[in-house]
C-alpha cells in the first residue's frame, strides 16, 4: 500500500507550488501576472481539497472543490474584465 506515500508526495509538490506562487504574487512585474498567479493558486487549491478528500476517504470534500472551481473561474474573468473594460457589470 504505497498510495499514502504518493499522496504525501503530491501534497509536498503542492506545498512547493504554493510557495512559488506566493513568491511570484509578491514579485510579479504586472497586475495581469498577479491575476494569472491567483488563477493558478485556486486551481492548486482545488487539487489540495481533492487530495484531502482522498486522504480522509470521503467524497464530502468534493463539494468544496466544485464550489471552488465555479467561483475561481468567475473571479478570474471578473478581474480580467475589470482590467479590460474598467468595470465588471455594465
Amino acid at each position, binding site marked *: 500500500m504505497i498510495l499514502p506515500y504518493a499522496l504525501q*508526495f*503530491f501534497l509536498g*509538490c503542492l506545498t512547493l*507550488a*504554493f510557495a512559488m506562487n506566493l513568491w511570484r504574487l509578491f514579485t510579479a512585474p504586472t497586475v*495581469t*501576472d498577479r491575476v494569472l498567479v491567483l488563477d493558478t493558486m485556486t486551481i492548486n487549491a*482545488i487539487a489540495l481539497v*481533492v487530495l484531502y478528500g482522498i486522504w480522509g476517504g470521503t467524497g464530502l470534500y468534493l463539494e468544496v472543490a466544485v464550489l471552488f472551481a465555479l467561483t475561481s473561474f468567475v473571479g*478570474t474573468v471578473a478581474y480580467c474584465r475589470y482590467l479590460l473594460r474598467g468595470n465588471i457589470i455594465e
Partner: protein
Amino acid sequence: MTPVLDTALDLALSAVLVGGGIFALVGSYGLLRLPRPMQRLHAPTKATTIGVGAALLVSALDLLSQSQISWQELLITLFLLLTAPVSALFLAKTLILRGEADANLPDTGTGKPWATLAPEHSDP
C-alpha cells in the same frame, strides 16, 4: 477484490498521483522561470490542469474501489477543461490591451484589426 488486483490498482493510482504532482509543480515553476508575460500564460493553463485532473482521477477510482460512486469528479474535470481556455483567452486579451504582451502582432489578413485593439470593440 483480489489482492493482486488491489496491489495493481494501488500502484497505478500512486503512479498517476506522482505524475500529477510533478505537473502541478511544473506549472507553478513555469510561472517563475519563463521570462515573457505571454510565455508565462502557457505553463499554468496546461500543466496545472493536468495536475488537478490526476488528483480527480485518483479520487474517483479510489472511491470506486470502496464501491462508492461519485460523479462530481467528472463535473469538476469538465468544468476545468471548459473554463481554462476562457480564462487564458481573457488574460491574453488583457495583456494585449495593456501592452504587456510581446509587441509586433502579425496582421489579421482580413483587413480588420484584432478585436481587443479595435477602436470600439464590442463585448469580448
